[in-house]
């Protein structure tokens, strides 16, 4: 029997499985976390006292929170442009697919495959101070020993560098999928018109990648604000809170000190910050081209 649905109904059916999953394992826990954030909850007392927004107002006077917010923003400002640019460049570089290029592509993608914890531990050792392998290599060039992750000015940029080493492969992959969708005829036509590589990029590739770039920027921003693993593994927020970031602060509060109320409040602040940023990115970038 053939029967057709109202498009609305079809839409709901298409999203139903996803919505069920998102609700059950995303939104319901989220609501629970919100309720927790309104209580003085410490995993002991099932009837934790309701404290209203006290956990939120406490954040305002929490110096570590402000440091974490500043550091996380600085980190995002370093990471997002870096990873996006590197990812796009890599994608453009490995465009024409030959056997050698496939090998290059695999090399650029390789750090993505390694577990984050392992990768972070690896960088910790490579950049150990003052006698780790990297310092040892630099000594060949008579560079004095660097403190790297122990230095309050180098630590955060180094983590950004590490993350972009780890994740640029994903950005590359996403851009590659985008490049693949650009019809070859467009380039052929441009080629006939005698447009050079740079102009082709400016006139065809970049505009057509707009939607993907929007995606990449939004995702990279979200991921940047959620930075946790390398901080957890390598610096634990130090030295001098130079790498104290929001999710690490949240983790420490929630799981080490068992201040679940504070941690939940923190996660909602984080949520609002990122949602605002993402919405802004959508607005700005959509304004440029018809999204």
């Amino acid at each position: 029997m053939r029967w057709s649905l109202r498009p609305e109904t079809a839409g709901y059916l298409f999203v139903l499985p996803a919505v069920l999953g998102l609700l059950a394992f995303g939104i319901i826990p989220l609501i629970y976390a919100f309720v927790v954030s309104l209580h003085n909850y410490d995993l002991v007392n099932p009837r934790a006292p309701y404290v209203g927004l006290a956990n939120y107002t406490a954040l305002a006077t929490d110096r570590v929170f402000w440091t974490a917010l500043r550091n996380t923003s600085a980190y995002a400002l370093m990471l997002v442009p870096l990873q996006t640019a590197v990812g796009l460049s890599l994608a453009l570089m490995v465009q024409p697919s030959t056997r050698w290029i496939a090998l290059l592509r695999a090399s650029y993608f390789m750090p993505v495959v390694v577990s984050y914890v392992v990768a972070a531990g690896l960088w910790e050792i490579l950049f150990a101070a003052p006698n780790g392998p990297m310092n040892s290599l630099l000594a060949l060039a008579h560079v004095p020993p660097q403190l790297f992750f122990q230095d309050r000015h180098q630590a955060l940029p180094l983590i950004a560098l590490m993350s972009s080493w780890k994740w640029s492969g994903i950005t590359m992959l996403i851009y590659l999928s985008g490049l693949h969708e650009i019809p070859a005829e467009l380039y052929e036509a441009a080629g006939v018109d005698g447009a050079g590589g740079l102009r082709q990029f400016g006139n065809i590739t970049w505009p057509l990648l707009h939607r993907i770039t929007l995606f990449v920027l939004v995702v990279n921003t979200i991921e940047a604000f959620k930075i946790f693993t390398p901080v957890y593994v390598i610096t634990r927020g130090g030295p001098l809170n130079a790498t104290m970031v929001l999710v690490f602060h949240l983790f420490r509060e929630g799981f080490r000190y068992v201040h679940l109320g504070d941690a939940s409040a923190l996660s909602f602040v984080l949520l609002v910050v990122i949602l605002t940023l993402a919405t802004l990115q959508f607005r700005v970038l959509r304004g440029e081209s018809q999204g």
Partner: protein
Amino acid sequence: MNLTSSGTNIRPRSGLLAHVAAGGKLALAIIFVFPLAWMFLSSLRPVAEIFQYIFPFSLWTVVPLHATLDSYRHLLRDEPFGRYLANSLIVASCVAAFDVAVSSMAAYALARIRFAGREALFFLVLTVMIIPFEALLVPLYLIVRWLGWVDSYAALIVPMVPRAFSIFLLRQFFRGLPRELDDAARIDGCRDWGIYWHIMLPLSRPVLLSVTLLTFQEMWGSFTWPLVSTNNANMRVVQVAVASFGQGDGSPRRSPSCCS
């Protein structure tokens, strides 16, 4: 790795420029691979040698002096590592497969079908993507426990589907596909399912592959959730097993709060 095979050959280059470009690409590849190569080569060393030749720099900083497969032998001997690998493989494959199916359907609707609440739904997807997993860990555990799933594959697989990231990525791609295709299909009598199945999916093969691959790798690397949601060693995944190798008493890798 050959995910895209695009014909967009952008620029024909002059000889010198091509060489410089090739050199640059190679240098980059070395930067990307070197740390991992170092790690791999270290794994071929006897335990006592791993950190022996780090300073000052010499050939032996990189190359093992006495190569051995001891580390791997230990790994396989001391642990039911095959079981852990199988668990990781099962979990990562299932999540990847379910996720790409569920996410692509949702993404299609979000990109192509107009229905009330679509924007709200997209907002929901973003929200789930943003909230740090650490904030959800306890409630998620309580839900899974209520379902009676602790220590089961269901606990490792079901809550991970769908990934908001996949929905978002696929939605962006589907939106980029020309609308004319839908219209043509509709004229040919296709309904939404037909368009999704016969047009969207075949046209998005590269990105579907990317999504599957990325989900697989994400799940393969996941650690916190498997640790919390399973107790039984039979359910252990590779990352949890590996995490305990470098830790514990007598291990120099981590500083325990107590070391007694």
